[in-house]
């Protein structure tokens, strides 16, 4: 597509957009800003996802929150494909939050595609059948001789009518029985499998995209909220008179901790989003309240506060590793004799990975408006925010203030990043509590230090590994002791080994144990929870064992996969060793596995299975004498079944590789006596553009259902890179981040 064509195509929209002068407001058709999801003016609703204007515009509602994973483009593509629409005629709008129409409107676990793909296909096919029914009536021809494509219903004679012409009659057609629907032959697809740009690209590049942080509500005031630096402390008093006298400050007050906010019907969120104690400052603009906060002096009650310390955790974990023991998760054979056998080679290794933060580019924020019910009317809450599970906010409002769900209006905005952080809504609880107290709309914006200090971190952890290689060079025994973290004895999200972990299901002679240490530090889901650290350990240690055996890593890894088989037959969420072998071989081949490289340069391989995805990556890394390392290229082979949006899928893989590299290279959260030690990006660096590797992506579009790609390309990156550093230098890396070992990503 040429630039000039894009310019012409966008000219109309941009002219409209630019006419507003300084107070530039997006001047898309009113429909584009509609949020109520009702039938648009002059539009015919064929189902809750599809409306057609008489002038031919096809409106498709996107019901899943968008955080950069591209779902707002991907799912509508499926509807458009099945109904026979031309993508150019499609406008995508955000669906309102309405479980009765759209079911669970949440994004997490790379499940949005597999959870919704069948519904999308049915909605598209259903709309198509209604349009064909209308055409059959109006053209007085048999349905069997009609076909929908290019936003038209076309008769075998060549005569056709446009969707716009058919809409008014189509809407009166009976809704087809879902059981009777037929679906297009994938070979005739014109939208699925192509590259479609994000539907919000124009508003993003012109600075019009409304994230939660951009919300402007009439009469709105601005707030900041200072929580106890020691997690779990509460405010008892503060210099209220001085703070309230600061320029632009309207009010300042203490909020007490509130565990009711954290009660959640979704199991993995339950207990996470407690309101933390602190001091709220409300004023005329963000800067005024931030400036006032600089003068804030708070007396904290730290009696219930965290005393977690990372240094102590490391010491304790090493002690546990040395002692052994732990809960036995798996004992598939006689591991001990294999380790005792004199002619077996045995290797032990202690791996470590840190806590990390989400640092979404858009810091946490929410705008809330509590409306006290008058004249017998019920209290109501309106809230604007970016959320991965916006329905949760209704529960929080009910838990905290007894406002019933029908009186809570949630406006789910585009998210400036999610990565799992926006599954937890502590910031929404804070905004609602502040507005509840003030009775006016209030926008609460977290500072970056707030965002880092009060994250729900990717949990750190440790693994004591032990392996034996027999004289023939085969794996004889595998012993894995996971040392992680729990709250009240229950492992936190991402800590411990999943039941379908490779080592849990695929190895013949394996023993897996698990020990947990109780902590107070909040932990949550972080892009590929559990997998993003387990991959590092397992795939690094497999490479160590291949090395011990004197075997080629690729050959050794393929051998471990064994026969091509499903490890849980018929379950698409289970590892399929055939799919694994195919991606491993393809990544290796495309990366030139075995090729001669300059001194100081090496290739590293890793495979990982999670989120129903099979992904292999080969990193080519060079390391100089000063321990500067450069990831020159990452070759990725992915099998998530047929690709829906090629550009979007590629983006997720490129982004996962860069995210994985950024994280392993220099990111670490530490705590001392319950206080998070990193404040901002100067102490918690995100990778910059210069370190960006070439990323060469290959999709194996196997004949399996399409599954999600927001997470699974991230886990193999770290071990691929550390294995490559070993190949380049002979140095084995068993802990992250690499900056702690004196390595610098360049």
């Amino acid at each position: 597509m040429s630039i000039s064509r894009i310019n012409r195509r966008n000219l109309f929209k941009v002219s409209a957009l630019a006419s507003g002068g300084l107070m530039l407001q997006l001047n898309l058709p009113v429909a584009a800003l509609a949020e109520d999801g009702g039938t648009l003016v002059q539009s015919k609703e064929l189902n809750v996802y599809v409306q057609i204007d008489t002038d031919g515009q096809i409106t498709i509602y996107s019901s899943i929150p968008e955080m950069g994973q591209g779902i707002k483009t991907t799912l509508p593509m499926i509807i458009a494909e099945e109904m026979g629409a031309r993508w150019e005629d499609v406008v995508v709008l955000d669906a309102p939050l309405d479980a009765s129409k759209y079911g669970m409107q949440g994004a997490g676990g790379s499940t949005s595609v597999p959870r919704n793909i069948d519904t999308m296909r049915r909605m598209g096919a259903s709309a198509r059948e209604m349009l064909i029914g209308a055409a059959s009536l109006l053209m007085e021809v048999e349905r069997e001789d009609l076909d929908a494509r290019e936003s038209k219903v076309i008769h075998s004679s060549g005569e056709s009518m446009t969707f716009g012409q058919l809409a008014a009659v189509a809407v009166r057609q009976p809704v087809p029985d879902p059981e009777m629907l037929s679906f297009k032959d994938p070979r005739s697809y014109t939208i699925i499998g192509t590259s479609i740009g994000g539907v919000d690209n124009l508003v993003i590049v012109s600075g019009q995209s409304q994230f939660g942080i951009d919300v402007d509500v009439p009469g709105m005031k601005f707030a900041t909220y200072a929580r106890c630096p020691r997690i779990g402390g509460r405010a008892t008093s503060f210099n209220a008179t001085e703070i309230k006298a600061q320029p632009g400050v309207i009010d300042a007050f203490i909020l007490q901790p509130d565990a009711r906010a954290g009660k959640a019907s979704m199991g993995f969120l339950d207990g996470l989003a407690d309101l933390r104690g602190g001091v709220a400052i409300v004023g005329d603009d963000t800067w005024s309240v931030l400036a006032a906060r600089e003068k804030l002096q708070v007396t904290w009650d730290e009696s219930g506060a965290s005393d977690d310390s990372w240094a102590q955790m490391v010491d304790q974990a090493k002690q546990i590793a040395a002692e052994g023991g732990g809960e036995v998760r798996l004992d598939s054979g006689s591991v001990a004799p294999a380790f005792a056998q004199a002619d077996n080679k045995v290797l032990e290794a202690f791996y470590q990975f840190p806590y990390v933060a989400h640092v979404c580019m858009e810091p946490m924020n929410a705008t809330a408006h509590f409306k006290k019910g008058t004249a017998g009317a019920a209290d109501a809450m309106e809230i604007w925010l970016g959320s991965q599970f916006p329905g949760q906010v209704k529960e929080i409002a009910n838990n905290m203030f007894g406002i019933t769900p029908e009186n809570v209006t949630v406006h789910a905005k585009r998210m400036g990043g999610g990565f799992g952080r926006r599954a937890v809504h502590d910031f929404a609880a804070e905004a609602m509590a502040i507005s509840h107290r003030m009775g006016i709309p209030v926008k609460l914006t977290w500072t970056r230090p707030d965002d880092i200090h009060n994250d729900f971190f990717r949990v750190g952890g440790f693994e004591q590994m032990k392996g034996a290689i027999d004289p023939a060079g085969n794996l004889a025994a595998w012993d894995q002791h996971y040392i992680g973290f729990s709250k009240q004895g229950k492992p936190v999200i991402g800590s411990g080994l999943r039941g379908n972990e490779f080592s849990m299901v695929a190895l013949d002679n394996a023993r897996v144990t698990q020990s947990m240490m109780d902590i107070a530090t909040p932990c949550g889901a972080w892009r590929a929870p559990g997998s993003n650290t387990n991959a590092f350990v397992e795939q690094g240690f497999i490479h160590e064992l291949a090395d011990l055996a004197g075997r080629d890593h690729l050959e050794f890894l393929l051998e471990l996969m064994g026969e091509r088989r499903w490890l849980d037959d018929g379950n698409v969420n289970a590892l399929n060793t055939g799919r694994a072998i195919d991606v491993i071989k393809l990544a290796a081949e495309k990366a030139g596995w075995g090729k001669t490289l300059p001194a100081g340069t090496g290739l590293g391989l890793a495979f990982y299975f999670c989120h129903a995805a099979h992904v292999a990556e080969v990193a080519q890394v060079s390391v100089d004498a000063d321990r500067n390392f450069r990831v020159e290229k990452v070759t990725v082979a992915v099998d998530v079944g047929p690709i829906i949006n090629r550009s979007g899928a590629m983006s997720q893989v490129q982004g996962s590789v860069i995210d994985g590299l950024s994280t392993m290279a220099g990111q670490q959260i530490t705590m001392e006596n319950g206080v998070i030690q990193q404040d901002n990006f100067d102490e918690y660096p995100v990778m910059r553009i210069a370190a960006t590797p070439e990323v060469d992506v290959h999709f194996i579009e196997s004949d399996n259902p399409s599954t999600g790609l927001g997470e699974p390309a991230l886990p193999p990156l770290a071990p691929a890179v550390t294995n490559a550093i070993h190949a380049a230098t002979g140095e084995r890396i068993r802990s992250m981040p690499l900056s702690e070992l004196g390595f610098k990503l360049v």
Partner: protein
Amino acid sequence: MSKFVLMVNGEKVEVEAQPEMPLLWVLRDKLKLTGSKYGCGIAQCGACTVHVNGSPMRSCVLPVSAVSGPVTTIEGLAQGGELHPLQSAWIQHDVAQCGYCQAGQIMSAAALLANNRNPDDDDIDQAMAGNYCRCGTYIRVRQAIHTAAAYYDADTSSTKVTGAGQ
């Protein structure tokens, strides 16, 4: 509170603000120009990048009292009803993921292209070094800048650089 007269996207505006209030918050909270984003407040991430006198500035640390010339924000980059070539290239390459940092990226890139019509990867890496992208769109950022530069190459006579020093 003091009164400041600013030239923003070609229009003269008066704002009342504390002199030390960063330009970012004047733009966002007072002028309701929310295209420039808050990301860190310490000039580390570049999400707040705007042009002042044509130079890329981190508006989160620039006091309004120190603004010394006309300001261009992402909202003022498209001129005369046409997208800036970078904005078109950004759409063409489908650069954005979450989109939050993209205004800052584009403003830094626009300042680069205003001074260098044919940047190589090193020039791009240097000019874009102050802009974080947490989603990892850097590969496409580079591609889009090259594409926009090629647009200038192909048609330098009739294309005016917009966004820088307007």
